[in-house]
């Protein structure tokens, strides 16, 4: 208990120091302090946002985007993170208003929240189905059918949201942190395909001796040196 208290006091001091450094435009020092918190196992959207801001101020937009994305995965409803991400890429809206609304709602709920919603909706569905089952043998004065429909809808919504976010995590989302060249094979002897700028996003398809085959958002793909990119969700 004493150790935890001391650790908290130490961490609090470190956060204040980092904030001071940031306010005084000493971004490299602020970054060092924030990274120490990361090393200590602290993970939360605000910490990722602040690290992303430090990198942004230092002009390293690749890493800046990487940390904003990490924070976004933990809390996609965080307005500050959303704003900073919008500087890199504006969210595209679907022309279908229903799908657009659905996407917007899902885009603001994290995988963690969807996990809880899935547990709650499943439990609710199970209870209502059980009541409906019992009603076949015993008279219970309870409007089961409307509630059953609502529970099914709630469960389907939670399941879709969870699946989308889980898919994003499993897709091994990648952000490029340095400008590099994409090749047709896993080394520099292969044909050059395109220049890949910092802060490009894509998904890791395959890995081969320090080279990553990445499918970028634009639909193009290529092998890049893995040191020029980082996984948003580390292994």
């Amino acid at each position: 208990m004493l150790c935890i208290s001391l650790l908290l006091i130490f961490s609090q001091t470190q956060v204040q120091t980092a904030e001071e450094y940031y306010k005084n435009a000493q971004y490299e020092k602020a970054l060092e302090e924030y990274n120490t918190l990361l090393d200590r196992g602290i993970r939360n959207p605000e910490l990722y946002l602040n690290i992303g801001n430090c990198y942004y101020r230092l002009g390293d937009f690749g890493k800046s985007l990487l940390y904003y994305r990490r924070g976004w995965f933990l809390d996609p409803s965080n307005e500050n993170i959303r704003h900073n991400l919008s500087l890199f890429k504006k969210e595209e809206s679907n022309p279908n208003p229903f799908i657009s609304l659905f996407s917007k709602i899902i885009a603001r709920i994290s995988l963690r929240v969807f996990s809880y919603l899935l547990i709650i909706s499943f439990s609710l569905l199970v209870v209502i189905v059980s009541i409906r089952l019992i009603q076949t043998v015993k008279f219970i004065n309870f409007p089961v059918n409307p509630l059953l429909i609502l529970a099914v809808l709630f469960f389907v919504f939670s399941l879709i949201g969870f699946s989308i976010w889980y898919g994003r995590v499993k897709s091994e989302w990648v952000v490029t942190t340095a400008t590099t060249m994409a090749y047709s094979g896993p080394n520099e002897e292969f044909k050059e395909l395109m220049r890949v700028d910092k802060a490009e996003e894509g998904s890791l398809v395959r890995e081969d001796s320090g080279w990553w085959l990445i499918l970028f958002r634009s639909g193009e793909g290529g092998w890049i040196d893995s040191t020029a990119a980082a996984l948003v969700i580390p292994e």
Partner: protein
Amino acid sequence: MVIFIILSLTFTAAVDQTVVPVGESFNVSVTVEGEDLSGVEIPSAPSISGIDILGTSRSQSTQINFINGNLTKSTSYIYDYQMIAEKEGQYTIPPFTLKYKGKEYSTDPIIINVKKGVSGGRSAPPSSRPLNRIHDFRNEARDFRAIFLETAVSKSSVYPGEPIVVTHYLYVKTSLTDVQLSGPPTYENVWVENIQSPTRLNFSSATKNGIRYQRALIKQDLLFPLGETDVKINPFPVQVVIRGDMFSFFGERKTISSEPKTISVKSFPSNSPPGFIDAVGELEISTQIDTLNISVDSPFSLKIIISGKGNLNLLSAPKFPESRKLTSYPPESSANTKISGGSLHGARTFTYLITPKVSGIIEVPEIDWTFFDLQKKQFVSRKIGPWQIHARPTDEIGTSEQETSKSNKDIAYILPVSYKKVSLIPKFFPLYFIPAIIFMILAVYYVTDIRKTMGDRRYASLKAIPKQLKRGFRKLEKEIQSNNVIQFYEDLTLVLLKFIKLKFHLNVFGMKKKELLSQLQNKKVSEKSLELIEEILIKSESVRFTSLKPSQGEMSKDLKNLKEVINALH
């Protein structure tokens, strides 16, 4: 091309021969020449070891040229120093000096060789040694060698793009009435920048190989070799008209030409860096970008300015790297250059128009640029950029001021950091489903159990029906025999309802007749049976609540109907 000839003040020294026999005199002519020579003193002669000055004479001449309506006048004082060397060897005649209007002038030193038994390298035979300088010029003008063109180059070996100053001089020892160029000089494998093309020839004295001439610059160019092929300077023809004399009043027309020249062009050191195209000199590069905040599909300009000294007008534009997020157009180029000191100075500007294809923060890629430094004789590389621009989506254009300022907002400020560890998925996520699954299992078990129990009861009740029916039928038959009408119909109803209750598990007691019939209809009971049941129930009510007294035969018939219904349903 007609050139006007003028003369200006000069102070020169020349010898009549550069190789002199021992003991033979030679003449050193010191000439002061200009438009106004009032107050000119006699030049002071230097003392020369091994050479004696035998005597000095002075002559004066005035030269007036009237060419194409332009009058020029020049006066010359010529001081002839007769000298003699008694010993063999090489002698240097030091500069003569002259003070005039506060300025000191001096001639170039002259070298002569004194040898035994040689005839002198005179420019004119001793018999015709000048007493009257103008007269002497006219005589010498008959000799074609007295008029010639010289092409002087600043360098004989250069790198591609390295500047070379080429000067074309006209040397004369006579008076000319006209000089005409048939065209500009021609060169091969070079880029040419004009330094000067005088419309009036400015003659001045010049000594070439120790012989004094009048020299005028007729053309000066700055050449930049294109590629590694040797530069060729072609013969440059010039037409001159020599002033006539009593034998040739209209003068003598001649075409003279310079000798061709070749300047060798060296290769650059091998392994030129990838950013090298053709820039050579002492150069610097700088950039200007007009905005870092732009909307998608709107162009912004990136200016690359190359400045300094070098082949600025020849420069190719630095290559803009390909980018999937940007469209770049071929650059426009402008130059602000001038030639001075045999080099091209100034700045060349390349303006690239670039359009973002997508929104967001976009990196304008770094540009590699290399030039060959002529001083260091090596390649020098420079990197410019990268730049980050913020491309706003086009739908934000024309929005309100508030929205525009929102879109231009800087990054969000840092937030207070908590010490929690937020995970992507709750720990032991699948375990949370266990209570619900257990609940479901229990519910299913409960329902199964109830159904099983209910099934047992139904079986038991069905089993009990025959006994109860037998007992009921016996009682009803007894009541027919005793003609106990009311009791008979009460029991008749009771037997029927009990049977329905046991058979269909319906809570028939307390249920209205219509409701009972409706329930039985739901249980797929036939219409005929329903009619009989209704008939039995109506008749029983009528007997019980009215004065109706059915006979024993009717009672037997009703009992028969009951049995028929039970048989049909059982």
